[in-house]
């Protein structure tokens, strides 16, 4: 299988691929942006697909966005640290903090790094995702080299992965934090608004630093942990030199992988 995966062509998505892309998506609203029908390759956004075999079936995809957050504000939680120390009392507390912000605005984004998990084995999934990620990074490198747009020069690339959720799609992080500020159904809202849902809900969330210790134990444990189905993508991102830990997504605290394009050697 691995050999075959290595030979599957990766090309820009075409209108005819939409039907093949739909099955790759996890359940609606699970943190991954939905693929708008007919999404093509503009100067800001590219969608690549890996296709296999005689029928040209879509086996995987990856999306690249340039200069994110400049048309619609994007939000993430920055994971910081606060130390409270009193030597006299022998107290030393290190706490994680969360601060809502637009830190990664202007970065390149790799999104929808997906493959056909239903028919591919784990190693084949990893191999395909690895190739898709390389193709995406190569696309970014090309664009940075040739584009005259100043916003193409940003050296940061990020990739959000979905966070931990239970079988019904509920995230322990959302249950501990988000639901106190938005009492609607986050899955329905995500389905209705697509990726823009996070921009909308950010307006309702705390804008001051939060101490992670005020969240439930389950929410704390979920912070920055990739959800089921995202482990393979996490692995290939790490291999490629991207690192998570500084930011998490604001709905389910999924990890945000970040890399410096000048250092990745892509």
């Amino acid at each position, binding site marked *: 299988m691995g050999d075959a995966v290595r030979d599957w062509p990766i090309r820009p998505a075409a209108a005819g691929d939409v039907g093949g892309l739909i099955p790759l998506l996890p359940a609606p609203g699970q943190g991954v942006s939905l693929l708008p029908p007919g999404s093509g390759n503009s100067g800001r956004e590219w969608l690549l697909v890996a296709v296999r075999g005689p029928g040209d079936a879509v086996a995987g995809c990856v999306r690249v966005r340039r200069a994110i957050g400049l048309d619609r504000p994007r939000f993430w939680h920055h994971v910081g640290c*606060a130390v*409270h*120390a*009193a030597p006299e*009392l022998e*107290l030393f*507390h290190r*706490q994680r*903090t969360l601060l809502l912000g637009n830190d990664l605005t202007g970065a390149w984004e790799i999104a929808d790094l997906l493959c056909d998990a239903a028919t591919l084995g784990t190693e084949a999934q990893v191999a395909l995702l690895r190739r898709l990620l390389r193709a995406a990074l190569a696309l970014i490198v090309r664009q940075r080299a040739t584009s005259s747009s100043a916003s193409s020069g940003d050296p940061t690339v990020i990739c959000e992965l979905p966070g931990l959720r239970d079988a019904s799609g509920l995230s322990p992080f959302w249950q*501990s*934090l988000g639901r*106190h*500020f*938005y*009492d*609607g159904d986050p899955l329905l*809202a995500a389905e209705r*608004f697509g990726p*823009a*849902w996070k*921009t*909308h*809900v950010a*307006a*309702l*969330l*705390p*804008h*001051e*630093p*939060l*101490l992670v*210790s*005020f*969240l439930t134990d389950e929410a704390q444990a979920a912070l920055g942990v990739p959800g089921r189905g995202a482990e393979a993508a996490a692995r290939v991102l790490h291999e490629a030199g991207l690192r998570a830990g500084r930011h998490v997504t604001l709905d389910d605290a999924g990890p945000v992988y970040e890399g410096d394009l000048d250092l990745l050697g892509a």
Partner: protein
Amino acid sequence: MSESRNRPDPARFLLRPARSEDLPALERFAAASAYGITTLPPDRALLAERLRRSASAFKSGDEASGEEIYLFVVEDLARGEPVGTSGIAASAGFAERFYSYRSEYVVHASPALNASNRTHTLHLCHDLTGVTLLTSFYVDPAYEDTLAPQLLSRGRLLFIAEFADRFSDRIAAESPGLADDSGRCPFWDAVGRRFFDMDYPAVERLAVGRSKSFIAELMPHSPIYVPLLPEEAQWAIGQLHPVGELPFSILVDEGFDPDTYLDIFDGGPTAHARVAMLRTVAASREVRVDDTGASAAAPAAPHCWRLAANTRRGAFRAMLLPAGGEGRLSLSPEAAIALGVYTGDTLRVAPLELDDAGGSGKGSDGSRDGGRHG
């Protein structure tokens, strides 16, 4: 109001500065109020030190520095012994920062989601640094239903009004928050405990003889979003421990705002006000003593009483006087002796019953307080 027949004559209470001889009484009060009054520590040496500091604050000829504490006792003249105590700290925090949580509400809205929320937040602040603090209120339970608590609490306000240049123009009073007998404190357990790993009584012990700000500086400086706290802790915010009800209700009737500030440890309310806006202060005026030969007959109804204080700092005295004698101030010889005044001296007086207090616009606390002393 007919109940007053069973009550001690209000004219037998005298508010005066605490003296070193009052140490045994203060020790008794401190032991009885072990919970919640950190300014009245059950420790003889600390109490003796507070008495010394108080005596020098009352007598000092120096300009006020803000460091002064003033301790009062209310004496039952019929028994010749103190039955309660109260205090004033001239400047909260003095050289240090005085920490409180300030309650705020933030409204967030998302037009796209057609949703908005109003979120209660608590902000660690130094707003009350430097304001005058009312402290150390304790009255013997046998006297709770008399007018002694009114004299004990509000007599201090006459003192502050008279010596305004020694105090801030803002005033606050901390009240104990909810905790059970074992010291379990829902607000502390949900907030402070995350940073200290110790139970509330242990932190109270730590705070004795040490500034609270030292501990406060270890607390998180970002606001607390109340909805993230356990429900029990949310309920405890601004809630009063039952032992604090009597002094708290007197202050609320005075016009203190009980809702804005909280104690950072137990979440109890820290009431605050502008001194000039307090009802006793606003209604008080200086009156010349016209004669000291009036009969000592006591009126029955509280509206016939007034608070009266002499205008001396070191020999401060305050008591309840019958209000009669339109336009004239006549004292009984006993009252004149207790207050240390002669004909021609000045007294600062304020009505015991305040126009608005206990009126229909106030909560049940106000009317209950009026009834209790009626």
